[in-house]
């Protein structure tokens, strides 16, 4: 008994860490959401969540997370498909996987800076696109690829989505590649042998088999976008109101801040994530019922 306990000793720091930095703060946060600045019980903070300003922040956050988890997911899926089933050369595969490992963890201020330097108003990619011009019939200069004239702005929701995609799709590649590799060649050949077209194979076997993994990966992507803060803050200087940015404003301690409202906002995020996880669990139950029965 003692000997086996000794073998489990390694998990002790883990639990200590979790208690100190997850359980304790989460309890604190939960309690704080229902307290005013003096520590008295109140529902004002929760009420505050339903002000138009904060509801808009939730909407923007959800929008950006949804768009980037789907766009990053689709993009990442096809990249993963290309390097597995598509029989891309070995070096393409290994360099893409290495890149994904890096890029999936590349966020925050450096990422924001990188995008400002490339796609910002004076970024060099913007400059190159701007310089592609020709003379129209009336001798005026036409520059059809100027992104900012075409309505694009890096400092908008769209710009934010593009920036997030940079770490979203590599994350998808990392998560989904093993799943695609798990598709057996024999399934494909058996389907073909029985008269199925490639499309029928994917619709009836490939996609359904991958669906639980795709759902899980999309949830992961959603979570990583929903919780992102530094990238958006550095990119837009807080001009796009995401929930995380509003929380930052509340707890940074300037005059306008209301720490307890910040707690309530965070609680709201927990609720949103809990809802997403519940939805995932429900979909996954359906998608992978053949695994469980």
């Amino acid at each position, binding site marked *: 008994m003692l000997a086996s306990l000794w073998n489990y000793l390694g998990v002790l720091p883990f639990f200590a860490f979790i208690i100190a930095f997850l359980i304790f703060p989460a309890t604190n946060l939960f309690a704080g959401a229902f307290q005013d600045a003096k520590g008295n019980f109140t529902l004002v903070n929760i009420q505050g969540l339903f002000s138009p300003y904060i509801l808009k922040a939730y909407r923007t956050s959800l929008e950006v997370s949804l768009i980037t988890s789907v766009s990053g997911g689709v993009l990442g899926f096809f990249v993963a498909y290309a390097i597995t089933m598509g029989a891309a050369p070995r070096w393409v595969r290994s360099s893409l996987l290495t890149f994904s490992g890096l890029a999936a963890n590349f966020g925050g201020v450096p990422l924001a800076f990188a995008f400002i330097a490339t796609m910002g108003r004076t970024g060099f990619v913007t400059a190159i696109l701007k310089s592609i011009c020709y003379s129209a019939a009336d001798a005026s200069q036409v520059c059809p690829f100027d992104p900012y004239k075409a309505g694009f702005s890096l400092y908008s929701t769209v710009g934010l989505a593009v920036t997030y995609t940079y770490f979203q799709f590599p994350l998808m590649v990392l998560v989904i590649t093993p799943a695609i590799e798990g598709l*057996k060649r*024999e399934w494909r050949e058996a389907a073909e042998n029985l*008269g199925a077209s490639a499309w029928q194979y994917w619709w009836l076997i490939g996609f359904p088999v991958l669906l639980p993994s795709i759902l899980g990966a999309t949830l992961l992507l959603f979570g990583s976008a929903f919780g992102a803060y530094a990238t958006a803050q550095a990119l837009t200087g807080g001009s796009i109101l995401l929930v995380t940015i509003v929380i930052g404003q509340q707890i940074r301690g300037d005059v306008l801040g209301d720490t307890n409202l910040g707690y309530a906002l965070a609680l709201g995020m927990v609720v949103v994530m809990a809802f997403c996880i519940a939805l995932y669990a429900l979909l996954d139950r359906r998608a992978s019922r*053949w695994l469980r029965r």
Partner: protein
Amino acid sequence: MAFLEISGVTKHFGPDAGAAVDDFSLSIERGEFISFLGPSGCGKTTTLRVVAGFEQASAGSVHINGVDVSSVPANRRNVGMVFQAYALFPNMTVAENVGFGLRVAGQPAALIQARVAVMLELIRLPDYARRYPHQLSGGQQQRVALARALAVQPQLLLLDEPLSALDAKIRIELRSEIRRIQQELKLTTIYVTHDQEEALSLSDRIVVMNMGRIEQVGTPFEIYNYPRTAFTASFVGHLNLLPVQVTDAATGACTFEGTPLASSQPAPNKQAGSARLAIRPEELVLNGTGANRLSGRVLSVNFLGNVVRLRVRVGAVELSVDMFNERKLVLPAVDAQVVLSFPAHACWLMD
């Protein structure tokens, strides 16, 4: 033209690679059960995959029922295939798996249902329709895979080492099942295996392959008793080889360490000199009356159940001797001196 005509099929994987299959030609009659037998890498699976349409032959052609299918894609060949690893679709029930081919062909649901029921009856798993593959044993999965391949009524059935992932007992059970179903449906079948016992017990004819080439084609009886090449002789069954000096190439007479021995066939290269005398373990008789006699010392006695296998040292070589078990059998002791005898017709000379 035979029902299945494989003519001069050659397959190279890549421009610099050697031939995985080298000039393979074979005619298979309707309803025949043919085994491709050989060690791994001998090209048997590649040949099968060329017939199935999963590989494009570098040269040669495949005709099924008079139609050249060489450029017909795999999903239009109407050839059933059973794979080595259980290739059942994991997200579908047994019934859905079996009905898959009919479903993608756009058959009405009622017809599919009826056909699935017939198939499950055929493989003797009628109560398993609603199970998922992971709820089945390996043997059951392979039965379902067989049913799935047969449901579309293929003109040809291809089996790629279907039993090699199974336990010995299930293997024997399922192999007679495969033969029963094949006979029942009178289905032209190609069976790829590296297991000689499977090939011998199942086939109408066996194609022994080595290094991409056909070594010999024949009935199991011919392949085992009259191997034409050294490879076939040693790959199929156990073989004792005695280094001998040929004294009369025309009659096949020779000597082993001074002892004269008679064989029934002339030496293969028609000249005297050193050669090897081949003899199956079951042809050697302990203290028998055969024309050829060799004395030796028993090294080991292995009781295998129905057979007892002895190792006997004769001069510089060790010979295997198999005898049938019976209750009154008296096993020789280790180190006992014995005389082995065998008739002239049981042995043959090889280079």
